[in-house]
């Protein structure tokens, strides 16, 4: 999952997944982990509320946060269910969103050469944008410690907040009256924001949004999201043409 740390935009840094984090001592790491967990928790409450609004039981909402533990993809799943689409589309969209974890996982894994298989599986489970970003900034020897400290802190914040949103959602009454449906696109905009600083990534985003909107009135729910991924292809093509033009003859 990707979230904004309080005050400091974080999350997907497209050029390089390594976000510099100055403090690497224990106290600095703990503070950092708790700050990130708190920011993530605000997301978790919206997830719990939206999951129940989409028709999931509160316990399934909490289970989702435990089983999946990847925020954006959980929102994608719940969004598909809320839209009346087959959850299959939510699963596909969620998995596509998580593909970036292959790159982050490979980068983190390369720095954990001596870990046991059990520990590597745990590291994989705890791998999210925030834990990977902190893990990859600092000495290689302590990569695992940073990954696990942030991962566990975020896990507690995420799962606990999901429970609050899921079980206390009933008390909130009509969700639209409070504008809570608007937290959904706002959440994704916050996740998207760090990507918009690079022109070609912003162009990809714009294309994706345009394709999804064009497809929305005519395609089955969930399909616009799949089609939006096609926005990647013209950008890759433009990259290829630019590289070819740059090759001296």
């Amino acid at each position, binding site marked *: 999952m990707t*979230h904004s*740390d*309080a005050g400091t*935009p974080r999350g997907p840094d497209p050029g390089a997944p390594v976000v510099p984090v100055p403090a690497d001592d224990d106290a600095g790491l703990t503070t950092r982990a708790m700050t990130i967990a708190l*920011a993530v928790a*605000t997301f978790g409450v919206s997830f719990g509320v939206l999951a129940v609004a989409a*028709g*999931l039981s509160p316990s*399934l909402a909490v*289970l989702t946060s435990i*089983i999946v*533990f990847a925020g*954006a*993809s959980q929102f994608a*799943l719940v*969004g598909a269910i809320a839209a009346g689409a087959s959850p299959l589309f939510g*699963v596909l969209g*969620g*998995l596509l*969103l*998580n*593909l*970036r974890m*292959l790159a982050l*996982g*490979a980068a983190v*894994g*390369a720095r*954990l050469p001596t*870990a046991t298989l059990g520990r*590597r*599986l745990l590291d*994989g489970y705890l*791998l999210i944008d925030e834990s990977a970003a902190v893990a990859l900034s600092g000495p290689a020897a302590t990569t695992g410690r940073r990954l696990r400290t942030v991962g566990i802190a975020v896990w507690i914040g995420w799962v606990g907040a999901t429970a609050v949103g899921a079980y206390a959602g009933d008390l909130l009454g009509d969700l639209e*009256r*409070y*504008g*809570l449906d*608007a*937290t*959904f*696109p*706002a959440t994704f*905009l*916050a996740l*998207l924001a760090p*990507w918009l600083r690079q022109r070609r*990534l912003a162009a*990809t*985003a714009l*294309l*994706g949004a345009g394709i999804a*909107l064009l497809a*929305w009135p005519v395609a089955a729910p969930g399909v*616009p*999201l799949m089609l939006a*991924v096609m*926005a*990647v292809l013209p950008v*890759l093509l433009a990259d290829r043409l630019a590289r070819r033009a740059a090759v001296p003859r």
Partner: protein
Amino acid sequence: MSAIVAVLVLGLGTFAIKAAGPVLASGRALPAGLERFVRLVPPALLAALVATGTFGAPSGLVVDARAVGLGVAGIALWFRAPFAVVVLAAAASTALVRALW
């Protein structure tokens, strides 16, 4: 596909994706083409989620109070507001528009 099955499939798939790096750790990078594709998917998908979440309705595309909320969220992000402020501002402005109209 029921919701619980979807959660389990998404969970298993996500775990496979996330654990692939740490488990297969060998210092090898992804194939360059896949790496480039993977890096571009999130902005396309996230933007699609923003757009359809703001303008999508069962009847088609609509411009309603959510668009105001998104605009306010955008302004909050521009000023580097913390995440909680961004989301709360979006909800509050959307609720305000609905209360007034």
